């Protein structure tokens, strides 16, 4: 699943459901009674896995699964296609994370039960994008009519690419891409924005553009994406959001981050009411609950 596979109307329905879940959790607490979610995580991911598990438990369902390939039959050489055929007999829905790109798609094509892509290598992480969109819609009240700054690793960060693609379908959004020269967005993103006539600019200084932003999406420079340790060390602390920079921003600007953060957001920003990244985690649970209910056709 790619968030762009949903129309904006379908996304609206999903987000409306998530908002209702947030407002009336008791109404949904037994919706998945008797249903099982299989979390098939071929690589470790504490937050995403726990978010899915928490979502299913909040719905009254139960959870089975594994949290790394070593404790699954993949270590014996079993293919994803075979694993999912077996999981289909044990569970009603599956969330899969795999280091190989396209693995959840292969699983979905062989499966009798819905398969949610919980991240496949550097390719896609659709439920993170749904989380980002729901957070923006809930806290800003709209998906459109704002200026969003995307800051940090814009070259390798798949969450940034997915978010730009998803937001590009809404009206009146200006993108400000803030990154060092080495970590600028790939050409295809720039081409897509130009083709669609969407306003964007690329800058290096975060301070210079802070007053313009309605949203700031910070990202981590990921060590695992670099071949050269020296480059990583040089770029990892290129941007650090602190109180001084926050003082330049609008009073209602929001700071988002897909987490985990390392140094790019100073802990002193956590208490600022504009810091929305921990609320974002909570919205991740709501949107995954909405997705599970929708895919199991329980709404």
């Amino acid at each position, binding site marked *: 699943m790619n968030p762009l596979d949903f129309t904006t109307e379908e996304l609206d329905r999903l987000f409306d459901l998530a908002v209702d879940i947030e407002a009336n959790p008791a109404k949904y607490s037994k919706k998945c009674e008797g249903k099982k979610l299989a979390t098939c995580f071929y690589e470790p991911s504490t937050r995403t896995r726990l978010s899915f598990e928490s979502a299913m438990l909040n719905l009254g369902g139960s959870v089975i699964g594994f949290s790394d390939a070593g404790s699954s039959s993949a270590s014996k050489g079993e*293919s*994803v296609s075979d694993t999912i055929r077996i999981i289909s007999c044990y569970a009603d829905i599956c969330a899969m994370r795999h280091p*190989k*790109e*396209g693995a959840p*798609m*292969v699983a979905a094509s062989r499966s009798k039960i819905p398969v949610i892509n919980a991240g496949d290598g550097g390719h896609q992480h659709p439920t993170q994008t749904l989380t980002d969109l729901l957070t923006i819609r809930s806290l800003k009240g709209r998906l459109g009519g704002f200026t969003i700054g995307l800051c940090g690793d814009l070259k390798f960060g798949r969450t940034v690419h997915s978010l730009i693609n998803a937001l590009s379908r809404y009206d009146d959004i200006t993108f400000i891409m803030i990154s060092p020269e080495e970590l600028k967005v790939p050409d295809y993103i720039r081409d897509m924005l130009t083709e669609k006539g969407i306003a964007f600019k690329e800058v290096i200084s975060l301070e210079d553009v802070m007053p313009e932003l309605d949203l700031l999406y910070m990202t981590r420079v990921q060590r695992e994406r670099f071949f050269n340790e020296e480059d990583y060390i040089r770029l990892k602390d290129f941007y650090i959001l602190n109180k001084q920079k926050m003082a330049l921003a609008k009073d209602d600007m929001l700071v988002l981050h897909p987490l985990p953060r390392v140094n790019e957001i100073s802990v002193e920003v956590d208490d600022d009411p504009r810091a929305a990244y921990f609320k974002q985690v909570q919205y991740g649970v709501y949107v995954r609950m909405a997705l599970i209910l929708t895919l199991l056709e329980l709404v």
Partner: protein
Amino acid sequence: MLNVGQIEQGYVLDHIPAGKSMSIYHHLGLDKFDSCVAIIKNARSGKLGKKDLMKIECDINSLNLDVLAVICQTITVNVVKDGEIIEKKLLTLPKELKNIMKCKNPRCITSIEQELPHIFYLDEKKEIYRCKYCDEKNHEKF
């Protein structure tokens, strides 16, 4: 000048860029074919200077010609029946290609699961093919 006789039924592929006919021979699976195939390389051409030309004697429904457009969209495909050309096919890039090229992305699921078909879809805006699983663009040259 070399003369190759007429075919009764099959295809005459004309205006193949010089040197590409053997690639077509392999990609159409003609090496596993039991019928008569004539390949003329480096023939004189008013349009191209030099060209390759192929005559394939076969049932006109037996070949999947999708790969031809990927090799070169300007190839002329003449369909022959009862010794006459009954149709000139226009080549367009197919929306999907199966097992014509292989995904070279080491992070793609096809790199570890050998039994998966290698499927590429057409990115129409850029006229390039991307792997259905990982979206990586095809780098294979024909």
